[in-house]
């Protein structure tokens, strides 16, 4: 019966469901948050308002400069991550692609390798 009703409705009217769900979600989230605020006890103390450091008490001010070395490594990792994402589907249909596919992938890998060589030569792989 429900299916019949859905079929009768126009395509545009079906979007009403989406709108209905959005309202439902927003209502649910706000209701839960408000309920939690009203029901939960609130007893503040100095140790509770400290920065959470997995049980340890923090020894220095966390707002200070820190080395960005890790991000450089993360970026370099991304090169190979993307490379793998492209290499897998390419390897699956390698036979049908033939020489064309081989050359295409060589071009791609050479460009990525150039990026790695650049980073290497600039000392991005050195952990000081």
């Amino acid at each position: 019966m429900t299916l019949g009703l859905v079929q009768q409705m126009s395509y545009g009217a079906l979007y009403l469901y989406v709108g209905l769900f959005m309202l439902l979600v927003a209502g649910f989230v706000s209701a839960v948050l408000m309920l939690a605020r009203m029901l939960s006890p609130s007893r503040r103390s100095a140790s509770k308002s400290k920065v959470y450091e997995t049980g340890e008490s923090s020894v220095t001010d966390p707002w200070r400069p820190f080395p960005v070395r890790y991000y450089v490594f993360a970026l370099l990792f991304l090169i190979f991550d993307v490379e793998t994402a492209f290499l897998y589907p390419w390897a699956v249909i390698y036979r049908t692609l033939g020489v064309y596919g081989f050359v295409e992938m060589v071009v791609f890998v050479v460009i990525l390798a150039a990026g790695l060589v650049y980073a290497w030569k600039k000392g991005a792989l050195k952990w000081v």
Partner: protein
Amino acid sequence: MPYSAETFVGLIPEIIAAIFLLLVLMVGVFAERAAGLVSGITALGTVLIFASSAWLLASGFHGSFFGGGYVVDGFALYFKLVVAGSAFFASLAATRWAQGTGDATEYLTLILSVVLGALLLVSMRDLFGVFLALELATIPSYAMVAFDRSRRESAEGGMKYIITGAVASSVLLYGIVLIYGASSSANLSGVAKAFSSGHASPVALLGLILLLSGFAFKVSAAPFHFWTPDAYQGAPTSAAAFLSVAPKAATFAILLRILVEGMPGEARVWTAIAAVLAIVTMFTGNLFALRQSNVRRMLAYSSVAHSGYVLTAFAALQGGAKAEAVQAVMIYSAAYAAMNLGAFLVIDLVGEDTKSFNGLIRTRPMVAASMFLFMAALVGIPPLSGFWGKLWIIIAGTGSGSILTYVTVGVLVVNTVLSVPYYFGIVRNMIFEEPVAGTGETKGEGPLKFSVYALAIITVLFFIIIIPLAAVAGSSGLL
């Protein structure tokens, strides 16, 4: 087989750009002391791109590749010439400054990335390809704006540019997706079918408006221009010079292609939007430029105003003057490239404060004469380059048969008069003020001065260049 020998011939300029991009990066990183060698390779690359594009254009090459998503025709090749030419002068001019920072390799690589993006962009016939190429041209330009680490404004300008640019890119992409959804094709010929009836669906029209907004940001048309002054003031001068010319010309070119090839059925809508954008842009650019004491910031607002002039040609793309309007965009882009690049490079030589131009006619007469020519050309005084661009726009506008376009052309004439005080304010300072200390020559200015003089000569001799240029523009194959 998705390619043929013809594909490689048609893609020669792009292949050269890609190879030189890698070459510059690799040579630069292995020969760290040889900054001059890297600059030379970059300049050679742009010359080869220019030569190969010119060869393709002269041989009348025409081809459509990759399922019709990529086209090499006269129109695209013309803009490839403009991009490669301005990249040549910009890379020469960038040499001294980039070597001073110690990161010449990175800077020149970024220039070549923008070039590669712009070369691909003008040939795209597929909306998603357009987006990819546009981002390839834009993302390196964020880095170029923020490249000067010795000045705080550079990072500030870069930050403002990247944040507003990301918003604009997403607006543009949203427009493209809506058009794709409405026409179930991203190819311009498929898009044209959805827009052919004359009463396109509301979704498609929303897509068109979002697309125009995104492009208005990229070409810094008001009210999407607010990033321009900060970005150009913060950027290294050679970066501001290059970014205000090459990617902008390519962006105008692809916008023209999208509108003419993809949405001829809705010409009534987008010519009206272009006319309103043009009027607002011209007034905003010129009125703000009048109040600047920093020459670089003034030229940034002037480049906003010039985007308005080009948009006037877009407004004229109707009635009986369509061919003239397309020609106007092409000729204006070339004329603007020469004069604006030159004006920015003179700032690199002299300084960005208005006072540093004082008495330049006595201290450095040749540079002062070049600056005078660029300023006069930006106003549009015949027979300099800017005049021919404006002439074509006015011819196209008066032939369009639309009242709104007539109004826009009238506004263009009014704005030309409005722009005289700030351009000739510089000229006044150069002639009548007493020179200040420290505007003398410094070492290593050779390539920069060569670029300035060459661009000044092109600006002057534009009345000769206009003959082949108009012939090429007339047979561009877009209309």
